[in-house]
């Protein structure tokens, strides 16, 4: 009489028991699996974000090629933008300006005039467009001229006695300059204006590591939207952001690990002329800024990149100037077998000069 009951009872308890252990096992597997992935995620993120172990974040398809055109010469560069138009100038013919519409790339040739028609231009005369003006600048002569967009005649407009290696206009009559300080004989950033005392050098912006001339070399940029000057060092993993008085707001690191300049300098002619004694170890090749972002063309390969990718393509690292952090990176492939020689960003458009070709890309990402 008891017999049929016993197996039934025990079967029930065993079922409950096994069901319990099964559910327990399943839940622990489930939770453990999630913890493992979450842990990997946290660890990986910490590695990419914090210690700059130098890995790139490469989202898919961030830059799509829209159009390309042949400029016929490889000496063009983008001087600036005005609404839906960019202006290209030419290093070998500074008075020749090309107006290019976006995104159609329709071109208009413009011949610039100067108030002194017989004037000869040095080869390193640069043109900069900052609406409503365009500027002609040469820091060796030195020469500064300004004209209105549409009128196209450049005239002397302000004090122009200061020598500089590069100048970036940021106001109608004020420029950031990169010059050699008379006092220290070292590179210094400064502001040149039309008001007394005309030139104010701010030597503490750049931080000397070796010689104070080559080691502090970099690309000077002006961000119109944020009203900030951005200086990207060529030979170390740093960029500096200042306001329009050149007061440093912050110094930040680019994602690579080269914090010390790796160049050697030598002096010739009894210490009067300094020269590079070793090939420079370029970290950041070039830069551009628009909106909240800084775009830096990097020379160094990250751990998560294929060497073949890196050899042929140009990699651009994007930094968020507002969050003061690295955002992501993307590649620009060669065009007609030519790598990017210069690039410029305005809003969602990136213009790259590949040798004699101008290629227009649209930037797609959640950040712009």
């Amino acid at each position, binding site marked *: 009489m008891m017999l049929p009951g016993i197996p039934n009872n025990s079967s029930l308890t065993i079922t409950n028991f096994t069901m319990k252990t099964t559910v327990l096992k399943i839940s622990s597997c489930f939770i453990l699996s999630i913890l493992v*992935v979450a842990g990997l995620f946290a660890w990986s993120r910490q590695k990419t974000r914090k210690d700059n172990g130098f890995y790139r974040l490469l989202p898919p398809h961030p830059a799509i090629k829209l159009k390309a055109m042949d400029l016929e010469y490889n000496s063009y560069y983008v001087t600036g933008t005005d609404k839906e138009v960019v202006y290209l100038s030419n290093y070998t013919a500074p008075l020749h300006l090309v107006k290019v519409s976006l995104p159609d790339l329709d071109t208009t040739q413009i011949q610039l005039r100067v108030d002194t028609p017989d004037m000869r231009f040095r080869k390193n005369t640069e043109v900069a467009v900052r609406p409503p003006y365009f500027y002609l600048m040469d820091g060796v002569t030195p020469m500064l001229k300004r004209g209105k967009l549409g009128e196209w005649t450049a005239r002397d407009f302000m004090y122009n006695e200061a020598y500089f290696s590069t100048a970036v206009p940021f106001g109608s009559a004020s420029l950031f300059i990169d010059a050699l300080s008379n006092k220290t004989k070292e590179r210094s950033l400064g502001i040149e204006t039309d008001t007394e005392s005309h030139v104010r050098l701010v030597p503490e912006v750049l931080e000397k590591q070796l010689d104070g001339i080559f080691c502090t070399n970099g690309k000077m940029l002006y961000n119109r939207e944020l009203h900030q000057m951005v200086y990207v060092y060529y030979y170390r993993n740093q960029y500096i952001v200042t306001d329009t008085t050149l007061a440093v707001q912050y110094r930040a690191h680019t994602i690579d690990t080269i914090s010390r300049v790796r160049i050697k300098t030598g002096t010739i002619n009894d210490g009067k002329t300094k020269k590079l004694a070793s090939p420079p170890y370029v970290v950041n090749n070039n830069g551009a800024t628009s909106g909240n972002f800084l775009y830096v063309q990097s020379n160094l390969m990250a751990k*998560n990149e294929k060497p073949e990718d890196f050899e042929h393509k140009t990699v651009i690292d994007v930094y968020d100037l507002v969050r003061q952090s690295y955002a992501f990176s993307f590649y620009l492939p060669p065009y007609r077998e030519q790598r990017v020689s210069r690039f410029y960003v305005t809003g969602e458009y990136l213009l790259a000069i590949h040798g004699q070709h101008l290629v227009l890309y649209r930037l797609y990402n959640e950040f712009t």
Partner: protein
Amino acid sequence: MKTYTIRYKKLLVEIICLLFILLFVYAACTKLMEYDKFQVQLGQSPILTSIGSWLVWTVPAAELVIAGMLVVSRLRLMALYAAFSLMTMFTAYIFIILTYSPFVPCSCGGILEKMGWEEHLVFNSVFVLLALTGILLLSRKQHDDVTRHSQQFIPHHN
């Protein structure tokens, strides 16, 4: 009626195991055949960037081992637990990518490449549920076998 259910359940377990074997062997093979591509994809994954290198071979290896274990009936339950865990991990990975990652990468091999991440999430969830069903059926069946044995043994003791 009861034998029918047991048979039906047995068949279901077989089908689930077969589906997992197909999935894992296929996934592992596409990963290994496109080893370079997989390595790059993992390296560029927003959440695995710095640990991609050793995952490149551990993931397909785990998939193959589990597929192998599913063939051996003695190891089946353990294999289903492992499959369940692995699929949970994949699903958690997709979930994290879709929710926390700054961007969504395009990777995955073979046919799975054609799938969007949301579809992938559903696909994976289905496999998680399949594994779960398999575990429940198999552990009950094993236990059924045990009780049947005990029923046979009890009269002996008396």
